[in-house]
């Protein structure tokens, strides 16, 4: 598996914690949500950095108790058409101010790269063959029709059109870059 970096963050190196195993002291682990919910206190006392693996079906409010304690989140897409994962990332950023890495894992296709970045994801787990396609797709659209509400600093073309210092149209591409920079 390869990792596609959407926002220029330092990607987390973690171990996916197998069931029935306990993490070593200081180990960076990814824990399935159910297990984290059951054994939360133990984890946060003993382990180094903890990330949570959630399915797209997870209700965002279920993550509230952990939002300040976890340092990264992996959202697992069972199918690339399952758009709940996008709202989940938006909610983490917007409702809980989550600043850590959000990674997309599971069934994702390259053409979703820019959507993922704009919804608050930092990285995508992909096959080696698809890495280039992801990186191409990430640069596809020069500007956006939406402003984000999650602190990425992406301004819609509607806002760019009317901002004083941007009264020509030359900076459409900058809007996209700005969004990527701020996310990092």
């Amino acid at each position: 598996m390869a990792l596609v970096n959407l926002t220029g963050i330092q990607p987390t190196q973690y171990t996916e914690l197998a069931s029935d195993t306990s993490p070593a002291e200081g180990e960076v682990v990814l824990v399935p949500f159910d297990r984290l919910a059951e054994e939360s206190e133990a984890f946060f006392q003993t382990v180094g950095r903890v990330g949570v693996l959630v399915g797209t079906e997870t209700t965002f409010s279920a993550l509230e108790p952990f939002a300040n304690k976890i340092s990264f989140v992996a959202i697992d897409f069972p199918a690339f058409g399952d758009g709940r994962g996008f709202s989940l990332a938006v909610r983490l950023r917007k409702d809980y101010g989550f600043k850590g890495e959000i990674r997309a894992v599971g069934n994702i296709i390259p053409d979703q790269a820019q959507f993922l970045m704009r919804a608050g994801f930092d990285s995508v787990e992909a096959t080696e063959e698809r890495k280039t396609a992801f990186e191409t797709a990430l640069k596809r659209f020069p500007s956006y029709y939406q402003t984000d509400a999650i602190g990425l600093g992406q301004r819609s073309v509607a806002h760019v059109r009317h901002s004083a210092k941007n009264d020509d149209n030359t900076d459409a591409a900058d809007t996209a870059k700005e969004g990527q920079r701020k996310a990092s």
Partner: protein
Amino acid sequence: MYAYDTYDHAIVNARVEEFRDQVERRMKGELTEEEFRPLRLMNGLYLQLHAYMLRVAIPYGTLSSNQMRRLAHIARRYDKGYAHFTTRQNVQYNWPKLSETPDILQELADVEMHAIQTSGNCIRNTTTDQFAGAAADEVLDPRPYAELIRQWSTFHPEFSFLPRKFKIAITGADEDRAAVKWHDIGLVVKQSDTGEIGFEVLAGGGMGRTPVIGKVIRDFLPVSDLLSYLEAMLRVYNEQGRRDNKYKARIKILVDAMGADEYARQVEAEWAKIKDQPLDVPEEEVARIKAFFTPPPLPVLDNDVPTVNAFADKNFLFKAWVSNNTGAHKVPGHVHVTISLKPHGGIPGDATDAQMDLVADLADKYSLSEVRVSHEQNLILPHVAKKDLPALWEALDAAGLGSANAGLLTDIIACPGLDYCSLANARSIPLAQKLTERFDDVKRLMDIGPLKIKISGCINSCGHHHAGHIGILGVDRKGEENYQLLLGGSGAEDASKAAILGPGFDEGGIIDAIEKVVAVYLGEREDGEEFLPAYRRLGADVFKEAVYGAR
């Protein structure tokens, strides 16, 4: 009309390049059909029974004459010389080659058109009143807000993989010609007592196999909050709409399951959290878009034109056409003209390349180069001087576009049906053709009066049978095409669901049954009473007895 700036051009051109790349990857085998499917669908490319079908967006049904000419050119160059206008105010090509579709999209992009989000589980083309900006009964022009929604919904990062397709309709007139109550979200433009512009917001309407009429979830939403409120509505739906069963995935099922009040409560709660974020566009942007839709500079003319009256007196078909196919315009001495794409015996909604070119030329000559598409699958010239009607009609009639049946029994909505569609159980087009041949008498049609027949070839109800005064639903009965008869639906401001009258019929039987329904109406109606009010007053039984005999 809205005109693209460099941003719009750049985005649409980038989309063409993206799709070209996707098609190439598919043809090289780098994308599986399963992976390619949602990508092509979001560019309007379907795989139907016999071939690919490309659905091109006509945003809120508004076209320039140049765009219409380009549609004609595409029909000629890439298809079999015709195109099909749809109930979503879009246009479909039935025979494009996969390898040529990127070129078609580029041809469209060059005239500020696209096929973005005309299919797939995303926000589709926003539809509106075909007479927007023209009709005398309009309170406020809905098109600037439809354009705002078009831009906001285009490539929305969070809402491009919804549980199911999502349709928004908006109207600004007293008479609802956009069927807003039958949409996932319906918006009615309103002005508050203080002069502020805003919307009544409806949610959870839809047809398909579970017809539901939308419910009001907010009486007045200021225009400055439109996009943040839509964002909240979509987020609640995206998170909670069902994904386990595609037939229960539309927002109507969610709103019904949780209750409209609870849905509204959750939307309001989410909106409260985001309304102060810069999700909504600046006031200057609303003003910029509105400036594209300022009322056209039409001279005030006399409403009574003796030359037109004289021509009507000696030509009954012209007189009938003026009576049925034209309507009151905001500016005296003008009308909006409906060009019927329902010639008796023809295919509802189809137009040839030559007809499209002609309509473009006539729009240049008589209608400030503007054309509209209605959800009833007709074309509209929105701004025509009454004095020009005889010349316009003669030109249309010579090209087979002069049918005087707008709003009458033969102005039938029909889905493509089993002739094209892989979902259909029965054919819709031949039935529409035979029905129009049976009722091929304009005098009789005018005596019957306004009557909307809508035909769907399967339960997915693309032909809007639930909203037909008379609805016809094609079903499969042990391998035979069978047609159910429904009565009493409405897509207008008095929206209602049509009810099945009784057992289904074969193709000949359904036409005979409609004859009987019409006969009951003609016999029972009171002075000036139209079909739908008569049905509502009389109830189903008298029709049932006439159609099925006394039991």
